[in-house]
């Protein structure tokens, strides 16, 4: 195979042709600043308005509850810091989980330095938050629960509706990092009692550097980026019109074809999982077997290290990712893999293949095939495998 097989859609996705097409006029033609009075600007205003409507529709929100941001990380930071600072008088306790994205975890750690108290909930072996533990963690001074919708590494989908119910019952605000879920899963912020929800366009075939925060009407929150009156005084900065237009279109396309896309992705996912399990010994599927993102496959391959695996895959044209320390730029392997109870040496051997709309059965079979050889080769080099083989 000569062309690249891209199986890292959870890291980012290419911008869809239709999405880019909608964006293009807003760079050099309809470039007016929406805050201006003249006619050129009304084009920008209308475009943003339409995108806001598209995004709102995707998650069952009202148009005026969508605030565009510079990405998923900004949305997470804003939601958590914005609520924390604004509601400090009411309380200073935040509940989150140990498997959140760093945009949530590092924000919470930052707030701890500023005097906030944070509970990091454990998860079970599949990466599920336990509802009883969540409810038991709520205290008088709890102001926010932040639990991700679906995990970016192992794909596990949380019981968001139930978490929302618990939050509502205790009158605590509920934020969910839905960066991996928007465009992949049906979401209804009302049915699910979600008060704040983060999303990022580049995970759903939209452009990078733009995202949105859903904020339930009436929710009091401090701005993260103060300044001009954009986004109804809540998020300053000249609007990234092309990016916003792309976000709207991407969300619309994703939800227009969700069931069909997901049927296809789940079939590919199961084929890939089965292929690996059938062909390669000493593997472990990470994440929940059913409650997982349609395109997510995550395995640990014992006795070998993930970066070596990725490099080898890259040599044969396959793009994936790993929770190994060598790829995370830190000393430890992925906090998510450790939180589901994996020992370090196993976690180092993880591989995530996240499928997308362009992947095919043929590609899946090719990847299984290549992987079999690669894993074998790396194991033959590994002193750990050696010990197992030798019965030591």
């Amino acid at each position: 195979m000569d062309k690249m097989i891209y199986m890292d859609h959870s890291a980012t996705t290419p911008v869809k042709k239709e999405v880019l097409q909608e964006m293009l006029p807003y760079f050099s033609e309809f470039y007016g600043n929406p805050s201006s009075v003249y006619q050129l600007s009304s084009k920008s205003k209308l475009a943003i308005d339409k995108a806001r409507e598209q995004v709102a529709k995707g998650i069952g929100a009202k148009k005026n509850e969508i605030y565009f941001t510079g990405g998923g990380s900004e949305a997470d930071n804003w939601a958590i810091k914005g609520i924390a600072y604004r509601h400090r008088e009411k309380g200073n306790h935040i509940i989150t989980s140990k498997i959140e994205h760093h945009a949530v975890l590092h924000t919470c750690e930052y707030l701890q330095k500023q005097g906030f108290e944070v509970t990091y909930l454990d998860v079970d072996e599949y990466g599920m938050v336990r509802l009883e533990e969540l409810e038991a963690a709520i205290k008088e001074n709890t102001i926010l629960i932040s639990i991700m919708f679906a995990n970016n590494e192992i794909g596990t989908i949380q019981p968001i509706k139930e978490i929302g119910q618990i939050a509502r019952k205790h009158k605590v605000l509920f934020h969910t990092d839905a960066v991996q879920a928007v465009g992949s899963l049906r979401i209804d912020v009302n049915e699910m009692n979600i008060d704040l929800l983060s999303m990022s366009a580049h995970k759903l075939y939209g452009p990078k550097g733009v995202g949105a925060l859903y904020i339930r009407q009436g929710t009091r929150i401090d701005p993260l980026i103060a300044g001009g009156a954009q986004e109804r005084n809540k998020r300053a900065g000249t609007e990234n019109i092309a990016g916003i237009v792309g976000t709207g279109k991407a969300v619309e396309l994703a939800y227009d074809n969700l069931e069909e896309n997901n049927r296809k992705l789940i079939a590919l996912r199961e084929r890939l999982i089965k292929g690996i399990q059938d062909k390669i010994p000493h593997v472990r599927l990470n994440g929940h077997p059913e409650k997982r993102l349609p395109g997510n496959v995550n395995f640990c391959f014992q006795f070998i290290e993930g970066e070596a695996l990725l490099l080898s895959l890259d040599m044969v044209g396959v793009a994936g990712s790993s929770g190994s320390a060598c790829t995370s730029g830190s000393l430890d392997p992925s906090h998510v893999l450790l939180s589901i109870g994996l020992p370090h040496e196993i976690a180092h051997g993880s591989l995530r293949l996240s499928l997308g709309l362009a992947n095919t059965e043929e590609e899946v079979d090719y990847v299984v095939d290549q992987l079999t050889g690669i894993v074998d080769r790396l194991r033959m080099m590994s002193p750990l495998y050696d010990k197992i083989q030798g019965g030591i």
Partner: protein
Amino acid sequence: MYSEKVMEHFTQPRNVGEIENADGVGEVGNAKCGDIMRMYLKIDGDVITDVKFKTFGCGSAIASSSMATELIKGKTLKEAMELTNKAVADALDGLPPVKMHCSVLAEQAIKSALVDYSKKSGVKIEGLEDVDFDDEHLHDLPENEEE
């Protein structure tokens, strides 16, 4: 990210394997940190006549092992003792800063095998006493100038 040399030694590593009845065997690193290197030496008098390795680790760990074995094969014990991690990295046309510890590991794996040889054979090797095999502090954190 990696030089061509690194990729070449990663994809076609030299001297992979074991030596039965090796004269010296050393193992450094630990699985927790994600890299283990084991080196086997065959020694004849003053000369390393054969060397093999097994490595659990990332691309640069495997490439460093491969390069290190190449650099000491056929060399004297004294020459092997003089091999620095920098020499390994240089021979690979450089390693990214966060990967320099792999070359350190390779240097240590050799020294650890020499220690084993020294113990088994009773041959004293100059300089071995000073080697520090503590690996934990070798990993570099990503650049963060301020702290």
